């Protein structure tokens, strides 16, 4: 009897040891943001600029340098880790001098679903959060085949459209490689100064935006 108990204990110990062994064998995989996606951040020479609206009111916008950081994720079965991942995030934030516009872009190397090259793109603009998959010039909707925009502090989830433009001209300057985002459910946002249309250029960042579907601001060339 005592021998049986001893052998059962041994079995448990072996199992635990195996679990630890498996846990230590799980390799950490590092995911980096695609080089092609890094172009969507403003270069250091394009961080401070002026935007003027259709009524002639100007304001300054100031952005910080794009910042890269890593986070860890993992999956486990019965507390035994089966997968570990390190994901790179690149983020760039800025605001206008009048305190009415806060903009932040984050690209995360989550490598969404089966598309191994697709990173997650998030554009935070005041209370709006525009989310999609991104792989260079290609944009991807979510699994329901929809581009979704969220409103912070509210349960609002709204549809929007996203397209890539080879070039786009604002205030007599032509930008190459432009992301165009347009909210479809423009009547839904609850908060003031909600961005309903955005043009975002590679190496420059924000170049044009429309707030509350009525006031458009244009970036002036430096």
């Amino acid at each position, binding site marked *: 009897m005592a021998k049986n108990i001893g052998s059962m204990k041994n079995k448990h110990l072996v199992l635990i040891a195996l679990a630890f062994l498996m846990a230590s064998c799980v390799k950490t995989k590092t995911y980096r943001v695609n080089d092609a996606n890094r172009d969507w951040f403003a270069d250091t020479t394009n961080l401070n600029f*002026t935007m003027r609206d259709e*009524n*002639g*009111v*100007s304001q*300054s916008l100031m952005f910080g340098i794009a910042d890269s950081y890593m986070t860890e994720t993992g999956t486990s079965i019965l507390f035994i880790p089966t997968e570990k991942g390190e994901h790179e995030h690149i983020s760039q934030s800025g605001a206008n001098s*009048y*305190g009415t516009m806060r903009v932040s872009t984050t690209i995360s190397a989550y490598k969404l679903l089966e598309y191994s090259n697709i990173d997650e793109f998030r554009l935070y603009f005041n209370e709006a959060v525009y989310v999609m998959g991104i792989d260079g010039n290609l944009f991807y909707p979510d699994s329901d085949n929809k581009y979704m925009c969220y409103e912070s502090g509210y349960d609002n989830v709204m549809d929007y459209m996203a397209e890539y433009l080879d070039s786009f001209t604002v205030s007599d300057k032509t930008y190459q490689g432009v992301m165009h985002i347009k909210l479809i459910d423009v009547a839904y946002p609850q908060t003031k*100064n909600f961005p309903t249309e955005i043009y975002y250029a590679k190496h420059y960042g924000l170049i044009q935006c429309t707030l509350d579907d009525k*006031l458009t601001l244009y970036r002036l060339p430096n």
Partner: protein
Amino acid sequence: MPYFCTNKFQNPKTMSKQQSFFRKKTLWKAVFPMALVAMSVLFTACPHSKPTYVDLGRIPEQYLASVPYRNGDVFRMQHETDRLIIDFTVSRYRQKETGFDYLYEKYKPAPNYVYEYESDITKCSPNYPIFDVEISFSNQYMAYEEEGIPSWSKSATLFAVGSARIPFFGEDCSGYEVLDSLKVNNQYYYDVFKLKSDLVSYYEEEDAIHADTYYYNYEKGLLGILMSNGEKYWLYEE
């Protein structure tokens, strides 16, 4: 006789040296926490911990008159392009606050004075995505000199992508640029302060657009703002 010597079986006088040593150690263990408590009580009882409380009362009516806005007012500013008129809705309120003497915040371990004072805050929110305008002041005394008589900076502070001091109504205005009159949108305004804006601490990007000059009088409040890029906003009255 202390309590640790009352053990009738072991009189300290008859104890060996070793026994005495352990006794002292036990005694120290018992006394140490009590000593700590006593010391903390002593520190808290030091004279610095009892500041003088001063109630500064209410802001005099004369100074309240330096800012002409009332809660719920709406005033209008016109952008120089004439295409845009912006409504600013006023929210004005007063509140009681508590502050210490200036020297305490700078150097001293405890305040000499605790002041209860009143603040008057006027917030003007635009119906357009531009800057807010805020004017605030209080009757807080500030002891700027050691052992000196508390002095009071008799002015209000105007904030609007920059800041400037507005002298209180009825007080000395020397050092301020005062215009006899100013014509804005075909109307004359009199006794107008021309106030140069400072960049406020959170706003030090000099090349960013900010307020350069404010025009202000006691009758109408803010009459105009000249921006650093040359744009202008003027009071609009029909």
